[in-house]
């Protein structure tokens, strides 16, 4: 088991290295650079900037230098925000993103799973239909539409919540709603179908035939088995929510890191692209690792062994 964990951690480092390498060379293969703009800079200024940021070095040297930085956890200076390092950009945006992301995650788990259960237990009756109609809309309608409509209705028309920012606690409502809407719907549908499948299993009949009370049958025997697929998708969902959303942060003017994800690319802000990609990849891999470890708790049939190759 320990051997397996060590193996997994090493594998994560190898994956991260591959992602860094691939992103680095792909990024440099795209025409243009951080200092390209419509307003042509004077060649001397361009050269000076390139020299300052070592962009005139051969690519392999830049790559090695960058790797050295990453190894010492320094993601380099931002090319676009003068005087700010990528570490600082992440450190500044992360708390905002994490806070909204964590709230959204709580909503996803606290609403998605119970809604799925209610739907499954009332299969083909009105609560099921209601949940499924809402969940289908939630999955189908893009989050920016939900965000814009919610903003118009609740902030502008009704004035219950502020239109932007998080200074007021009420400011969290709409971004969290818009962020979690899709995943609540997704998880509700998944939990429903998974529970319905579990309810058909022979061991559920056994549990009933033993005379166990309805609640025990459902929660002790049914739920645990049906949550395995839900936990599987929750890993990537956590990674997705905690790294923020460009659209939502843009619409609600939140100073998170989600927007940097997209802005850094249009800006050709090389170090920011690299840094945020590495950050996202690391969070995703850690979450998937945690999910794999959770399987051990949920399903005793799963045992991990390090490959003896």
């Amino acid at each position, binding site marked *: 088991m320990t051997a397996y964990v060590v193996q997994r951690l090493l594998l994560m480092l190898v994956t991260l290295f591959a992602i860094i390498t691939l992103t680095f060379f792909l990024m440099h293969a795209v025409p243009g650079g951080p200092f390209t703009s419509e307003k042509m800079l004077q060649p001397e200024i361009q050269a000076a900037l390139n020299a300052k940021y070592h962009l005139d070095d051969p690519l392999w040297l830049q790559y090695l230098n960058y790797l050295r930085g990453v190894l010492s956890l320094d993601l380099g200076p931002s090319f676009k925000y003068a005087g700010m390092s990528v570490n600082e950009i992440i450190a500044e945006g992360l708390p905002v993103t994490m806070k909204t992301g964590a709230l959204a995650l709580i909503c996803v788990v606290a609403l998605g799973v119970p809604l799925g259960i209610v739907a499954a237990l009332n299969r083909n009756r009105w609560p099921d239909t209601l949940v499924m109609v809402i969940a289908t809309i939630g999955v189908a309608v893009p989050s920016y539409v939900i965000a814009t409509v919610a903003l118009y209705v609740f902030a502008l028309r009704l004035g219950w919540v502020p239109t932007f920012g998080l200074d007021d606690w009420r400011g969290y409502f709409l971004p969290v709603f818009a962020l979690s809407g899709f995943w609540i719907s997704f998880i509700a549908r998944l939990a429903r179908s998974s529970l319905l499948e579990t309810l058909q299993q022979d*061991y559920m009949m056994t549990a009933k*035939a033993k005379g*166990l009370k309805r609640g*025990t049958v459902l929660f002790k025997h049914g739920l645990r088995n049906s949550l395995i697929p839900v936990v599987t998708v929750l890993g990537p969902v956590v990674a997705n929510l905690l790294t923020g959303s460009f659209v939502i942060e843009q619409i609600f003017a939140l100073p998170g890191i989600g927007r940097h994800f997209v802005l850094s690319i249009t800006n050709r802000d090389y170090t920011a692209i690299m840094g945020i990609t590495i950050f996202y990849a690391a969070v995703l891999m850690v979450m998937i690792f945690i999910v794999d470890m959770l399987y051990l708790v949920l399903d*005793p049939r799963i045992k991990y062994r390090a490959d003896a190759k």
Partner: protein
Amino acid sequence: MSTPLLSVSNLSTSFFTSRGEVKAVRGVSFELRAGEILGIVGESGSGKSITCMSLMGLLRSSGRVIDGSALFEGRDLLTLDEDELSALRGNDISMIFQDPMTSLNPTLTVGEQVIETILRHRKVTRAAARARAIELFELVRIPSAAKRLRSYPHEFSGGMRQRVMIAIALACDPKLLIADEPTTALDVTIQRQILALLKELQGRLGMAVILITHDLGVIAETADRVLVMYGGMVMEEGPVRELFARPSHPYTRGLLASIPDLRDDTHHRLTPIPGSPPDMLRPPKGCPFAPRCAHAMAQCNAALPPLYDAGPVHRARCWLHHPQAPRVAGITAELVPA
């Protein structure tokens, strides 16, 4: 004779599907005395499992008991509410199923699955329930019982899992054990072990058993009395010896003729029953077996035969037993020595 432990009369169960009403069980009646083993035999869809599921209140949601009564120790099982029924299930009446590979919860230890049953029905401490679970594992001969309590189902073979299921079923000393094809999913040698174990435990604990199977060989070895079901009805019933010696319904005769006989070295082919079971969405007006029966007469398609006496405790649902029916060798009582 003492009052029976279970007395089922005119039980009828239907499934209400989008295609219409499927009449799975049509007026089944039988009695079961304490300590007796009753075999119910029939092919898939004959209504044998649905009969028992109806008694246990374990029908899937589209199924409903539409008529009949089932007196168990003076209480009608069919009128009990879910709370009363669940207090009986696993306690006075317990059940084991066909496939031990899927009947146990894969994510709980087998010990927990026994212990939770005991704790549900008995006011005992967890430690006492655990001690009882060890006792039960020893009873069904699971080696190193105390250690195996902590194992999960996937760590057991099929035969061992069925032993766990039996241990769960026996946890609260049931008066009636319903075994629904308990050996069908097991290989032959394990089948014999499980049957022998069931029979031995039945003798030792004195409970009544309903053994559902499609295998007449299993019935012959285990049961005291047999119900032969077809098309949701009882076709023939009687003591095992009597029924095997003098099958009084053409269907029973067909079943017996289709059993391979290993001692027979003449290499002739098995005798199958031609045709297929009736469509229970539109059950025939007459005898459900008539379309496949070699002896069918006009009367058979016209009306459903009643259960005729074929002996003192032996009855068969066949028009051939009508006083005016033609005599058929081997089926009609008059032609065999009483």
